[in-house]
């Protein structure tokens, strides 16, 4: 990666999810040089694993297609995948950044023909599907992958599979000798958009995510609906592969809870409301959704989405933080126990499947940032003058929905531009 040319008028964007892509593209379409680094093998981030967005019920891959085309068409953006930032020094207008690029073992010759994947035997949990399915040791992370290049799993390097992949490739695209590379660049400003990860549901012990097959997370539920997902878009529950028709959604699974995440993750209410429409999409009047909630946070004009879901007779709302879940040993149905606090009713409700609306946790733990920034007690980067030319975008800044994350990213693009414009002296 010696050909990376960056100056103190260049903007570095860290993270290639929708926030990072947006920040990079807005700055590049304005006319700035941008380096976009992404830890994974391709851009898209968390939203590329969603089936639909609320409130429009449109598909994230649609916006991703546009954004990927914008990247392809824009010579100002230089994308570096499988790359992480390891060190940042310097100051606003003049940062030295060290990047670490992991070997992909596949070069630009790759045509995405798929011959290597056919040749490889080993299979691993598919990250794209949160481990709900398997993928090969040579793989294209998703059908939307950009760059559209295969990756070799480092675990097959040194095994006969790696050689099989290399031999299968007619285009000399597989390079088993690729090494981790370190690059140093100079940039003027940094947009930090490393996004979020779902809160570890194993930690919510009373809900038995680790013990009961039919307790899954909201992000996994998205994969079940996706035609590219592990079930080809069918709502099949993990224990027996049967269709799940009576589904419980548990809100604040890890959010608004001092035992887990103290903050409200904002998106989960709308996400669950949205997911009830999936149940309707699949089963019509035969499906049944129950939402266990503390407050339904369908904020601003999208409140009408909540009103519409409320009007759906197959959806029930119970104001309750579910106390615990046990499993019906006979049919593996999860049984939810708790109290509806609107009028005090105890319930013991059996469902086919439980979806935990897991909270949003910043991807980078507070102590792990390679630079000095002000981080609040929830792990989000605060806007602060002492951050200099480093600006948080999207869910690095707060628990945000996609729309607000993109807004935030657009704003941070401007903040970065202000810095590099000052450097360029165009201010006066």
């Amino acid at each position: 990666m010696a050909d990376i040319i960056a100056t103190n008028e260049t903007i570095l964007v860290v993270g290639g999810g929708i926030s990072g892509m947006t920040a990079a593209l807005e700055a590049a379409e304005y006319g700035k040089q941008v380096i976009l680094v992404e830890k994974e093998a391709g851009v898209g981030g968390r939203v590329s694993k969603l089936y639909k967005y609320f409130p429009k019920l449109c598909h994230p891959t649609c916006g991703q297609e546009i954004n990927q085309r914008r990247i392809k068409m824009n010579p100002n953006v230089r994308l570096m995948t499988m790359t992480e930032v390891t060190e940042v020094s310097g100051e606003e207008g003049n940062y030295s950044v060290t990047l670490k690029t992991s070997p992909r073992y596949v070069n630009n010759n790759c045509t995405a023909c798929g011959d290597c994947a056919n040749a490889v035997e080993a299979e691993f949990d598919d990250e794209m599907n949160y481990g709900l399915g398997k993928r090969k040791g040579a793989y294209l992370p998703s059908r939307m992958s950009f760059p559209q290049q295969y990756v070799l799993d480092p675990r097959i390097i040194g095994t006969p599979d790696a050689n099989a992949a290399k031999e299968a490739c007619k285009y000399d695209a597989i390079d088993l000798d690729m090494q981790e590379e370190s690059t140093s660049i100079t940039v003027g400003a940094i947009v930090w958009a490393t996004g979020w990860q779902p809160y570890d549901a194993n930690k919510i012990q009373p809900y038995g995510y680790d013990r009961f097959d039919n307790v899954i997370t909201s992000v996994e539920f998205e994969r079940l609906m996706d035609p590219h997902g592990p079930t080809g878009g069918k709502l099949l529950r993990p224990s027996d592969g049967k269709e799940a028709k009576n589904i419980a959604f548990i809100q604040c699974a890890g959010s608004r809870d001092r035992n887990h995440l103290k903050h409200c993750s904002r998106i989960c209410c709308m996400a669950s409301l949205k997911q009830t429409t999936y149940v309707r999409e699949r089963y019509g009047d035969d499906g049944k959704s129950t939402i266990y909630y503390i407050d339904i946070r369908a904020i601003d004009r999208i409140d009408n989405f909540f009103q519409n879901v409320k009007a759906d007779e197959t959806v029930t709302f119970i104001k309750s933080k579910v106390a615990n879940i046990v499993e019906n040993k006979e049919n593996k149905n999860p049984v939810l126990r708790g109290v509806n606090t609107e009028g005090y009713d105890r319930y013991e409700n059996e469902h086919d499947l439980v979806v935990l609306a897991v909270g949003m946790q910043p991807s980078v733990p507070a102590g792990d940032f390679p630079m000095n920034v002000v981080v609040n007690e929830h792990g989000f980067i605060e806007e602060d003058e002492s951050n200099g030319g480093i600006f948080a975008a999207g869910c690095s800044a707060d628990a945000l929905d996609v729309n607000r994350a993109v807004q935030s990213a657009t704003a941070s693009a401007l903040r970065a531009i202000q810095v590099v414009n000052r450097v360029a002296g165009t201010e006066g």
Partner: protein
Amino acid sequence: MADEMKIGAYICKGCGIGERLDTAQMAQIATRDAKAAIAKEHEFLCNADGIKMIQDDIDNEGVNRVAIIGCSRRAKVEAFNFKDVAITRGNIREGVIWVRPDTDEARETTQDMADDYVRMAVIEAKFCKPPTPNEETAYNRHVLVVGGGVTGMTAAVEIAKAGYSATIVEKTGALGGAAAKSWKRIPQKSPYADPEDTGVADLIKFIEDSDKITVHLNSTLTKTSGAPGRFSADITAESGSTTTENFGAIVQASGYTEYDANQLPELGYGKSDNVVTQAELDAMALAADGGPIKTKDGKEVKSVAFVQCAGQRSDKEGHLNYCSGHCCSTSVKQAMYFKDQNPAIDTNVIYTDLRMPGAGGEDFYRSGQRKGVTFTKGCVTEVATGGSELEVKFKDLILNEDTSEKVDLVVLATGQVANSGLNIDEVGQDEPGEWKTNPESVLNLSYRQGKDIPQLTMGFNDSHFICFPYETRRTGIYTAGPVRRPMDMQQAMEDAVGAAMKAIQAVENAGKGRAAHPRAGDLSYPQFRREGCTQCKRCTVECPFGAIDEDEQRFPQFNEARCRRCGTCMGACPVRVISFENYSVDSVGQQIKNIDIPDEFEEKPRILALACENDAYPALDMAAMNRVEYSAFVRVVPVRCLGSVNLIWITDALNSGYDGAVLMGCKKGENYQCHFVKGSEMASVRMSKVDDTLQSLSLEPERVTTHEVAITDIERAPEIINEMAETIEKIGLSPFKF
């Protein structure tokens, strides 16, 4: 580039193409049938050697149109990136070999398919010029900011900080808007525990000290015309004097008006002075300045109830059917005004869902509780004003009983109503030349389609795109703050920064003649042959972005900088006088006409599929990656938007012997997913008239179908094609085979 056209066709044999198809025959077709000057095969076209081969031809052989026959136009874009030539792609990987079985039986029809894609790519190259930027560009680093509230001020400040200049036009006599009338704001920083200073004074000071920001108080816009890079605005002061200034872009931060609480008599508003709105309470707090807050008759308030969702989230006539987002936090802030001054004051917030999201929201909620603010989940039915105290009657939803509470003061959390100007879908536009100022309009645009930005829903000027929140339907004009959707001050300020970003970007793009989102950077623009125009106005009416006005002679007047290059005008034009250099009635029409139509005895029908390049086409690509098979009789042509589909393409196809046509576009209607807003809707309106054409040709109506296809429809999109093949099998081939 004005030199003579020379087309090079390059056929890739990689990824199994060479094994499955007769590429030599395809090369021959490229030169013989489609008249390419050069046709070459290559084992691996996208590698360095293949690219060099093409580049050499460009450099040494004068090739200026390149037809790449290989993988989809979505693949290897970075590799096939040749400067200053027109590039087309024939999709024989995802479009042919990956969707066809590798059997002897299928070999011939598969080869037919590939042969046609060669013809199409070469013909398209023939009718595509590399676009030259439109000359009507203008560069102006001055941004107009409409509204001097916190949103507008923040936008102006951020624009100035980026090195541009801004002019604020504010209707009232002072900057600051609603925030200036508030005592404090909801906290914006950790630990999110206490109300904080509004920050208005700092913003005003920055503006006063800045030589880049001009302010017009007591002023409104009486006329706004032009396009990005060359907006012209008449700024009229209350006194009546008008100045005209030019701008590169516009930020509309016209804010909100508090919902009229007089419509809530059941909640006691208007009946008692002690029932106030949130804005009124903030004014009382501002007057008290940290001292005890007093009622109108001078009594210190000892107990106060906050009624959330007053006239909001309600279907009742005259109420707002949305949530204003900020009111829960605002009530907590205001309850703290009381608690911080005197902890003994009883403050109760009556809510149905407490909506304080994110990290700050929950912290602030807890802080309120810690300070002794109480929260009751309940529905208020009435505020009785008869007695010495106010009686708030409500249903306690937790204790499940009707109850009441007596208080000194009731604060109604009424919502935000957007100051979005005229709803142009309901109010018509003046005839050109008879242009009048409308007092209710915010922008008073002189656009053919109306004076203000189209409203999305509930009166808000929001973008309909989740991924692209700033995409208004008027290029170069960006809305920010509560006019876009209900929001609190922190969000409004962040929103203002985003809108400022888009505004300076619009300035730069307009200066270079580049398109704005979603075809950012596209240099092509609609070109119009005035002689042929019949002044039917379809283009001016149908343009989703209101880019086209009418001149004094009633001819369409294209404002290129307002154009988003969707081609809806091209699709609308009945006399086909609108085209782009690289996308035209011919560039698609000639592809359709130049495929090989087998005669009826061969029993090989032909189906035309016009697919939206952003959703339906990728869906077909991804179906191919999954090896979903579909009929070999289809020929797929990607289109910028279904809205760009001109009826002539369908008519020509049917006339040339196609047996059916399927159109695949994005979802239309209320939750439209069309990236050009109205494109797919326009297409479906036009296609509803295709029956007449079919009738005149004595063809069955089922031969042409229009479908909504999402990018995830990897099963359905091929199915649609197969269904058409089945339909044709049922009703028979078209009689128009020559």
